[in-house]
């Protein structure tokens, strides 16, 4: 297995090795220096990333004031979910905080492959359901203000 297959194998443990290989073939290693953009809000969501090393900030930019960081994403985790559903535009921006290596996937190719191979499609959607579920839980807990709440 190469490094991209290892990374995907950890994210998709139920997927057969052959399918991991197919998916890995769609991934390209990318390098980002600190402050480099991975993508920008409102632009077409064409590429998603799995972080291999480093740290990425997911940010929101308002009409006034600087960007606010919504969360940071570290090794093994996914940056970019908006490619999955219409209108396929980024809701947030992503920026490397540290020197970062990712595996970047062409979203159109992945969607096309998932459409033609339902087992792969199911596993990829399950993977992203897990990512979205984790982030939803985290967002809910942060709304509750975990550190200030009265015991």
């Amino acid at each position: 297995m190469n490094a991209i297959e290892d990374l995907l194998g950890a994210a998709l443990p139920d997927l057969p090795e052959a399918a991991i290989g197919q998916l890995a073939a769609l991934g390209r290693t990318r390098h980002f220096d600190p402050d480099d953009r991975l993508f920008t809000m409102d632009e077409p969501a064409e590429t998603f990333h799995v972080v291999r090393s480093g740290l990425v900030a997911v940010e929101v930019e308002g009409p006034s004031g600087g960007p606010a960081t919504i969360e940071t994403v570290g090794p093994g985790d996914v940056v970019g979910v908006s490619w999955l559903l219409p209108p396929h535009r980024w809701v947030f921006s992503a920026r490397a905080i540290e020197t970062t290596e990712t595996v970047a996937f062409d979203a159109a190719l992945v969607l096309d492959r998932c459409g033609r191979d339902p087992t792969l499609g199911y596993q990829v959607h399950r993977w992203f359901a897990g990512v979205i579920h984790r982030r939803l839980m985290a967002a809910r807990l942060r709304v509750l203000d975990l550190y200030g709440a009265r015991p």
Partner: protein
Amino acid sequence: MVPARYRVADRTDESADTVTLTLEPIDRPIPTPGPGQFSMLWAFGVGEAPISLSAIDGTRLGHTVRAVGPVSRALASAPVGATIGVRGPFGRGWCPPGDDAGPAVVVAGGLGLAPLRPLIAALVAARPRRSVRLAIGARRPEDLLHRGDLRRLVDEPGVSVDLTVDVADRGWRGRVGLVTDLLDASTVSGTEPMAYVCGPELMMWFTARRLLDLGLAPERIQVSLERNMHCAIGWCGHCQLGPSFVCLDGPVYDWAEAEPLLAVRGR
């Protein structure tokens, strides 16, 4: 129980509403406390509140106070030289990992870092036999307490420090997310660690859940509970939680003891 008189020898502003007071005895000191124990601090003319030890240095005591109500506001605004009454030490503190030299995982949320501070000092002193992993969460970067300690700990061999905040702007180059996200399979791999968790109850609840999910036994997770207190010596029942008196049996419990107690309140 008559309070001993202490003098505020030093004050360190930790954040907008939180200050660490260093107290030294004016006449007789209280017996030497252990990590995780608490004192009842008297703001004369205002009242008394339970406050954990955040530093223990001979007869000098460190207390980190967040101003939330009358007593804590009076304590937090006490100037150097002011007199404060101290009763204690009270309660059952952190149970150190023993001599098995296993790793320690310390998880702090918000003000919860303060009661863990004497424990962290003891754990760090026990190296190189033991590795210490700190996972610390706060609302905002400016709410992170004891920043001088954290800067020093980052450079200590055998100690890892991970910080995360809920809300940050670009000035913050660290992580943004929940403190539970700092815990992963590597946290509990190898020799089973002892985990020490302190923060608001909700944070401790989710942290304990995460550690259990990662495979840690409930007996190896310790948490510190807070309840309103009055006498602190098991007389008045103010602090009662189910069958337990937090002032005597706690504030530190292992998760096997704490989970049913917290469930009592939910009923």
